[in-house]
């Protein structure tokens, strides 16, 4: 994995005074209020909190999938609150890697092709894409399964392919929503090991939403959300 994004001291993620409200008919539902958060390159943050506390909403804002009602969200130097949909799509393809709870691999594509999918949006040649895919699959230890379809893989292997897809474009930030939520303890441990390695060896900035305290302690920082407000921030080893 290359070191495409050099550390210039600026935060990778800067969330300032962010509020997010949803509207259902005439009812306004506040989900996040007064959120401030900064992550530097190489940070690894676990977002915890009960259901409905706003974890996923905050993750969506940081990943450029949603816009705040007020406040600013700046990720990798890009201010996201006023960027157009098409620019955001391009920006996400370059800067964000996604890991989903249910893996969300494309069932008609092999592991290799799934990992290659985000690379098809780049200007890389076929040979360069193959090199990237092979490197990503090697990192997650699935080089020998590259021609398997998702249905031919175990849950843990599917999630590792999902991680390979997330890192194939060498993104600055990886967002993971309950990456171990659908896995058994052994597979979950392997996935957490892998994410820790991405952070430690490849200096990837990671935000992970989790309910699992055992998963959260693997992060460098843990943030608790309650009713849309950040209530606690702890560092690994302090819990």
């Amino acid at each position, binding site marked *: 994995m290359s070191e495409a994004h050099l550390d210039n001291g600026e935060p990778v993620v800067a969330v300032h005074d962010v509020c997010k409200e949803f509207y259902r008919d005439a009812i306004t539902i506040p989900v996040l209020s007064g959120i401030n958060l900064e992550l530097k390159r190489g940070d690894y943050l676990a977002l915890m909190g009960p259901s409905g506390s706003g974890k996923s909403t905050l993750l969506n804002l940081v990943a450029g999938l949603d816009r705040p009602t007020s406040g600013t969200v700046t990720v990798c130097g890009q201010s996201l609150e006023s960027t157009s949909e*098409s620019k955001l799509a391009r920006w996400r393809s370059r800067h964000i890697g996604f890991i*989903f709870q249910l893996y969300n691999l494309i069932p008609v594509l092999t592991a290799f092709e799934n990992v290659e999918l985000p690379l098809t949006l780049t200007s890389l040649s076929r040979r360069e*894409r193959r090199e990237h895919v092979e490197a990503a699959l090697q990192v997650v230890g699935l080089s020998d399964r590259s021609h398997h379809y998702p249905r031919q893989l175990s849950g843990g292997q599917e999630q590792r392919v999902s991680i390979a897809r997330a890192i194939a474009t060498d993104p600055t930030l990886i967002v993971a929503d309950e990456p171990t939520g659908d896995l058994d303890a052994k597979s979950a441990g392997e996935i957490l090991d892998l994410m820790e390695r991405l952070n430690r060896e490849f200096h990837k900035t990671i935000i992970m939403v989790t309910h699992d305290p055992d998963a959260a302690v693997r992060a460098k920082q843990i943030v608790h959300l309650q009713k849309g407000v950040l209530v606690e921030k702890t560092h690994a080893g302090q819990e």
Partner: protein
Amino acid sequence: MHTLFYIWRNLKRNKLRSALTILSVGFSLALMTVLNGYTAMQDAWGAESEKYHRIVVLNIQGFSGMLPIAYVDRVRGTEGIRAATPYAWYGGNYKDEQMPFAQFGCDPKAAFGVWDEFSIDPKQLEEWQKTRNGCVVDRRLADKRGWKIGERIPLKGTFYQFDLDLVLCGVWDSPKNTDSLWFNWLYLDEGLREKNAQGTGNAGTIFAQVTSSDATAKVCQTLDERFASSDNPTRTQTESAFFQMFADMAGNVRAYIFYIGLAVVFSLTLVAATSMAVSMRERTSEIAVLKAIGFSRRRVLVTILGEASSITFLGGCLGVALGCSFLELAHRAASQIVPLSVSEMLGPWLAYLLASAAGIGLVSGIVPAVRAAQLSVIDGLRRVV
């Protein structure tokens, strides 16, 4: 990996659904191919007829009217006419078969002058001219029936009250299969006279060849003016117009085909749209993932429209292939009804059918594609992220 590759993989995702959609489009397009092939065949047949600048004279009332045999000589004597022959449809049964091929009474001395693109061995022609009950047939018909020179061919009259007992004198070669038999018109007329039956002295129609296509219109007008004041006024037209008249007898076939085509296209669009809508609904989270990792709206739109068009285009190819196969089989089995092979009527209408198939896919895919392109990633993922 390219969009086309992804489209192809998606087509194979639910093989049963894809196959059923392709088959429904295919069978409908096969029907349209047959219908459109019929009109294309008429056009091609008409265009072919134009080359030989032949004209057809018949009673102004049509086939029910009398066309005296004496008119043949008067037609022959008209300026601009190269050759003319009576051409009376017999329509007899052969053994147990009802009108299995076309049979016409004509003038053995003039027929191959009117159809000068046909060729026959001069000795066989001479034999036919000498033999009152002789006949000649298209070589393809003789081969199909296994007839040899000297073969007895009995025909039982259905329209005429006189049975023909014909002897095969020769076979002719022609650019197109006519599936026809010619006998001497005089043989029929004499038989009818002997039996004091109706229909004597009737040429049926007169086929004539004019010296040049430029003269055709003038000759037609001259002939009709000449017979206008007689008991049997005529209507003279080109051979292609004559064949078109047969088609018109069945009503405005082209209009029927057009409206049937519209109905087929409309129903196919609904079938394809339903299939695509179900497919998209099943893949909501997948589309959301594509958009999350950076696929633009346009790319999602193109992918889904491409998928819809591909599936109907494949169905279209299948349908056109089936329809053309049917036309070819029909041509081989009944060349009286389908006189041209598919290879002789290839044209833009086939491309139009394939384009229609792809168009059905585009139209049917628009709604699912736009909905997918506008899908909120968050809603699509159901807040997984």
